[in-house]
């Protein structure tokens, strides 16, 4: 078992790589810790429960509330059904997610990292499991340094077993988004699920276990691009976890003694609590750094110490760079409201909101039936024995409702034109064709259009489709009718 905590350290002078500092974060309680608990519960619940929610869509569509049906190329989300050609909604959601992150970052800094990133949430979960088995920081260090014994092995086995269990469940929950959850679970347990399901669970189990259990802060510090992007996006008006050195320095271990001796002292008593609770093992007092995911646990830890000392809270606090400068000079701090509502965040928010509104609007207005006509290009036209000209088209009617619908295809323009659909023949040619389109699917018909008129060489007309039920709905597609030049 390669546990990060018992990594053997190598000679100092070997500079090929950086040694990993083992991190044993200490448990802490406080306002931000509770917020993290809440967010963890909410996000994990959403993740695990969503695929099991049901949503009645009638007999012809799946009843899973959220389903990415890759096999049939449909995306279901409660009352919304998205077809492949409407994928821009998904693109829109992704753009919103991106801009949302920008907004969040410019307003509250790396809040995503500290609270909502899956890496953070799962690592947090794994750390708690570890604490549950091995005890808090000191006990963990003691255990790591203890010689191999039966109890140590047992504890390690239990811990890694629990981690693996969580990892399997994480990977397992993922696949339920892509198929009917209850029947997939059944098949999965029986060994009848498709190979890809097992492979997906396997890969996600491996990544969850490795990233949440073994790699942890290494992911944030070395692998993730987001800290780099975020560092570029933050400005002097973004919130960051900051140690107020003007208030804390100079540090003193024995404040009373120092006071007696008349040595100037700051509020920091160098108790190292903020370092011990840090999940990435850094010392925030060294200043802002890329290793800080702004989880704010050091704020909780420090606030507790300040409370015990009877000093105001917030020696380490969320504060913007500008405010920090002001405060260091003894000026009053600007209200948070003013910091958050500034042009940059308002612009981000407006773009974000505009995309959302536009999507809602177009979702409300989209038709659930449409027609597309594809003209045969080779040959463009065919002259028949009696001189009539025939053009062929492939007509697709999309029925995006979860029920069969009767529709009528018609011609708009070219009054002398008649048409028939295969299989059928010229004797049945008319101006309209009726057909039933299967629920939630695309019909594909080959339609021949004939015209006796000898001219012109190129004429525009449209195919129309009209639903023949109460709900109605119609669409049309413009095409051309071709004849030989100079007939």
């Amino acid at each position: 078992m390669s546990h990060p905590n018992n990594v053997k350290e190598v000679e100092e002078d070997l500079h090929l790589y950086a040694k990993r500092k083992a991190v044993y974060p200490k448990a802490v309680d406080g306002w931000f810790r509770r917020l993290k608990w809440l967010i963890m519960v909410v996000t994990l619940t959403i993740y695990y429960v969503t695929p099991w929610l049901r949503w009645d869509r009638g007999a012809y569509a799946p009843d899973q509330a959220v389903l990415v049906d890759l096999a049939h190329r449909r995306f279901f989300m409660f009352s919304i059904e998205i077809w492949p050609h409407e994928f821009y909604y998904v693109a829109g959601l992704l753009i919103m997610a991106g801009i949302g992150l920008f907004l969040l970052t410019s307003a509250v800094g790396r809040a995503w990292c500290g609270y909502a990133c899956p890496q953070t949430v799962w690592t947090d979960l794994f750390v708690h499991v570890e604490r549950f088995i091995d005890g808090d920081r000191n006990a963990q260090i003691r255990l790591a340094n203890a010689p191999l014994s039966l109890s140590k092995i047992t504890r390690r086995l239990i811990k890694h077993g629990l981690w693996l269990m969580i990892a399997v469940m994480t990977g397992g929950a993922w696949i339920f988004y892509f198929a009917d959850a209850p029947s997939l679970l059944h098949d999965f347990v029986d060994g009848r699920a498709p190979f890809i399901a097992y492979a997906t669970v396997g890969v996600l189990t491996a990544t969850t276990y490795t990233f949440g259990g073994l790699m942890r802060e290494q992911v944030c510090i070395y692998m993730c691009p987001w800290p780099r992007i975020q560092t570029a996006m933050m400005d002097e008006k973004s919130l960051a976890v900051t140690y107020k050195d003007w208030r804390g320095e100079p540090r003193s271990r024995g404040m009373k003694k120092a006071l007696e001796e008349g040595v100037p002292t700051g509020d920091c008593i160098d108790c190292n609590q903020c370092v011990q609770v840090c999940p990435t093992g850094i010392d925030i007092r060294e200043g802002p750094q890329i290793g800080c995911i702004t989880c704010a646990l050091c704020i909780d830890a420090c606030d507790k110490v300040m409370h015990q000392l009877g000093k105001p809270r917030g020696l380490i606090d969320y504060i913007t760079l500008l405010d920090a400068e002001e405060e260091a000079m003894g000026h009053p701090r600007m209200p948070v409201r003013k910091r958050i509502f500034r042009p940059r965040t308002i612009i981000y928010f407006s773009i974000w909101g505009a995309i959302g509104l536009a999507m809602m609007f177009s979702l409300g207005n989209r038709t659930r039936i449409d027609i597309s006509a594809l003209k045969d290009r080779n040959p463009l036209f065919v002259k028949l024995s009696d001189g009539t000209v025939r053009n062929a088209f492939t007509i697709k009617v999309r029925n995006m409702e979860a029920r069969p619908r009767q529709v009528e295809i018609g011609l708009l323009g070219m009054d002398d034109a008649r048409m028939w659909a295969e299989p059928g023949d010229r004797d049945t040619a008319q101006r309209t064709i009726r057909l039933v389109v299967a629920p939630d699917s695309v019909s594909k018909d080959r339609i021949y259009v004939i015209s006796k008129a000898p001219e012109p060489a190129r004429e525009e007309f449209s195919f129309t489709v009209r639903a023949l039920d109460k709900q109605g709905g119609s669409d049309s597609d413009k095409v051309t009718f071709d004849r030989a030049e100079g007939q």
Partner: protein
Amino acid sequence: MAEKKRIDEPTGTETVGHEWDGIEELDTPMPRWWLFTFYACIIWAIGYTVIYPAWPMISDATKGVSGWTSRGALDAEMKAQADRTAPIRNAIGATPIEQLSNDPKLLQAAVEGGKAAFKVYCVQCHGSGAAGSKGYPNLNDDDWLWGGDIATIHTTLVNGVRQPNNDLTRMSIMPAFGRDAILQPGEISDVADYVRTVSHQQPVTGARQRGAAVFAANCAVCHGPDGKGMRAMGAPNLTDAIWLYGGDKATIVQTVTNSRYGVMPAWGPRLDAVTVKMLAAYVHSLGGGEALPTATAPIDANPAAAENVQEANVASK
């Protein structure tokens, strides 16, 4: 440059020693797992070049111990595809051509398969859209020399047109009326005018009467007294709008003078039976396909009889 190596104060990290306009690079050490991942990739790459063909030699490349080749992979894929389509091909093979359209699924598969085969064997003459060109019939229209139901198309495909040593081949022989001096140039011109009037391409003129007589004496045997053609002999309908070689007067005169002898290979001996069936289904599906005759006897021509008629006609002159 190396002498410029120094410890960067804010980060405590060594620099690599290069400097560009005051910009220096930190030599931040990678974490150990990263380094090991790098080593693992190197080992993987070595293993890969041992297992797969990789190293270029003078005339060849190393073969790799697994014996994998891209040609072999292609063969395997082709075979897998052939295995996949085998059941449907067998089903098409077992179904008589007349009954193919009773099973829409099978018919669709046959049409698709025929479309692919058409692109290989037929497009050279008939064009990729099967629209033909001068001398090569357009297969999309409703005009058929020998008949347009699926079974007749199939027979034409199997036996070809004017193939030697094939008793069933489509054989129509129009005399070269001018070259063989059966008709005088004036008569040919008259009959061409007549043909252009029955196909409504030019108004009735004085030539019509003379042409009509020539037509009745020489052409009506095969093309019918009214010029509507006779499929049994492969004689085209001269009253419709479709001309294989052209309906203008010069072309008609040329056709009557020299006659035309188009050919098509007999696909029966060249392709497997299933592919020919699929080709027939495809050609029939192009929009001009006709229904099978309700009578049980196919209207297949007896080519020998047709030839006899032609010969008799020539002889009578």
